[in-house]
């Protein structure tokens, strides 16, 4: 029985209406968000169309902009996967930010001590996986709400990074806490040298493929999805629910750790205090808007990468501050969540709310 179950990679046939829904809901939510964003831009006294045009031109119009877009997309892909994989087994990894911060720290430490990026990448994977695994362990075997534990672990991780750059890893005489420039041998090589696109971007693509394969083509992934859809049924089908939950957090943490390592060794080439611009938190909205599916995550991460990369051109050309970026990135999920909830409401309740 179980072997037949695990051999199948589809949990059930998905009706066409549902598939259409999966595509149309995020698109509709994003459209509403962009319209709201346009209203905000107009309220700031700028022309919304000109602002959006400047955003697109800045992100895609030049070779430099395109390169920046691609580089900005990579950490969002990793962070989105870091949230999506645990999400598939029903866990909510709010801790991608902390796992990413520790990954960056380990990568920087390895760069300083080993002059080797491979050690840094592996160390970051392990660090991220362990940090997430702690929350996963507490949830799986002690019933500790992973939302709260990962929020706490985020703050602790950020504190550890701060301690490290202010202390043992800090560069003497720097005006702000930082490791200073990391040794050149320890940095990620460029895969497209003339666009300065580092190997981490290729790793992000690989991470998408591996995650898709893991979730939809392996027994472990099947079990993760089964646990996420119905843990009780999964338990009765002989799946060890705690180990599957724990495993999904390990995988998520590994992706987050890699995000940090690639950013430190590929883009920033140092570890400074406040080095992360909250990719871990953006990863949560990327995962949600992308339907916790690697394909959706790739699209949303690229979309958000465009917004990130084009923001400075938008600010330069139309005077709309770059601080609008998190607003435009957050709003789509707010509406998507509303649509999703609306869909699962009983029809009597819907009618009552609609009045």
């Amino acid at each position, binding site marked *: 029985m179980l072997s037949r179950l695990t051999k199948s990679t589809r949990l059930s046939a998905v009706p066409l209406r549902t598939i259409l829904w999966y595509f149309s809901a995020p698109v509709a939510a994003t459209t509403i968000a962009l319209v709201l964003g346009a209203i905000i831009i107009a309220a700031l006294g700028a022309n919304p169309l000109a602002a959006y045009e400047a955003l697109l031109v800045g992100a895609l119009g030049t070779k430099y902009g395109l390169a920046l877009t691609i580089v900005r997309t990579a950490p969002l892909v990793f962070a989105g996967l870091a949230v999506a994989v645990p999400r598939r087994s029903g866990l909510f990894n709010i801790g991608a930010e902390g796992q990413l911060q520790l990954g960056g720290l380990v990568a920087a430490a390895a760069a300083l001590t080993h002059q080797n990026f491979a050690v840094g990448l592996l160390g970051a994977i392990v660090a991220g996986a362990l940090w997430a695994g702690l929350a996963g362990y507490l949830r799986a075997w002690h019933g500790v709400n992973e939302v709260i534990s990962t929020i706490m672990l985020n703050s602790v991780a950020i504190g550890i990074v701060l301690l490290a750059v202010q202390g043992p890893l800090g560069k003497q005489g720097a005006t702000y806490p930082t490791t200073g420039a990391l040794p050149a041998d320890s940095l990620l090589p460029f895969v497209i040298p003339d666009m300065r696109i580092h190997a981490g971007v290729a790793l992000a693509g690989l991470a998408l493929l591996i995650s898709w394969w893991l979730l939809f083509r392996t027994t472990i992934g099947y079990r993760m999805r089964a646990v996420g859809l119905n843990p009780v049924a999964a338990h009765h089908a002989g799946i060890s629910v705690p180990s599957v939950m724990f495993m999904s957090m390990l995988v998520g943490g590994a992706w987050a750790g890699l995000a940090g390592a690639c950013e430190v060794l590929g883009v920033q080439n140092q570890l400074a205090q406040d080095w992360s611009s909250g990719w871990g938190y953006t990863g949560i909205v990327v995962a949600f808007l992308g339907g916790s599916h690697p394909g959706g995550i790739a699209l949303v991460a690229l979309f958000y990468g465009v917004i990130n990369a084009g923001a400075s051109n938008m600010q330069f050309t139309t005077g709309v501050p770059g601080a609008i970026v998190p607003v435009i990135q957050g*709003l789509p999920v707010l509406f998507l969540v509303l649509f999703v909830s609306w869909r699962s409401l009983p029809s009597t309740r819907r009618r009552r709310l609609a009045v």
Partner: protein
Amino acid sequence: MDGQGFGVLDASFLQLAIGAATPILFVALGEVIAERSGVMNISTEGIMLNGALAGMAVGVFTGNPWMGILAAVLTGCATSLVLAIWAISFGANQVVVGIVINLIASGATTLVYQVVFPQAGGHLIRTPPFAPVEVPAALGTTLQAVLTQNVLVYAAFVAALILTYLLFRTPLGLLLRAVGESAAAADTAGIDVVRVRYLATMFGGAMAGLGGAYLSLVDVHAFQPNMTAGRGFIGLAVVIVGKWHPIGALGLCLLFGAAESVAYRAQGLGLPVPPLVLTLLPYILTLIVLAGTVGRVVEPRELTKPYIREQQI
């Protein structure tokens, strides 16, 4: 503030610790009420930021800090209303909505601050001061120093006592706890679950907004982007470790306020551990308590569970 001595533990230290405890206490008290009704509001960080900016901006424009406080409370209510509509009426995932509110608030407050105060570039804009509290000298210099606090500090500590009484000694408190423990049973008993949750969530938002305004109007006397620096999350931690009890929250806020103050004071004292470690205490303690090594955590039974009457069997 740090007059002459380098003493880490003295009257002015206590004063500092109580002051540092206050914004977290506001947040935590609001969160206790919201969570007791079954709504987990993890957007406290974002609501604090909104409150901090609204309080600062209205305070500066009116020249009256109390108008700033009022604005912060209203902003907190309005922000938590989003969570309430989404989570209570539509049954949306409270965690997702909370995280998104945090994300949007961090961008929106920075945006509004830059637009409304374009001159703020290099220097901070000072908020108007509160009238000082006169502490009689008859109490002795130590007590006088400790008690010389903003009125809001007194308000927070009194609020903890009042809320304890309301929660555990009045029908209103029983009603609130009933909704958080078993919404269906409360509904059957004729309690309007939706209304109770809306009011509790918005009270939580108002208190978080107040905590944010304390930071900008009393503590720093200015607004800085992302100035809350995780205090909204500490508020969440305090609620859990304090076992959803206002007095538990009060004690922990004092402990964490003291830790923050030691860290602040001890810089350059050559302690064996970096003072920064102390600021991580709230998070580490929460993890230890959650892991079950110290006491047991029993949350309100229907925390984060939406109540849709039509879906009850």
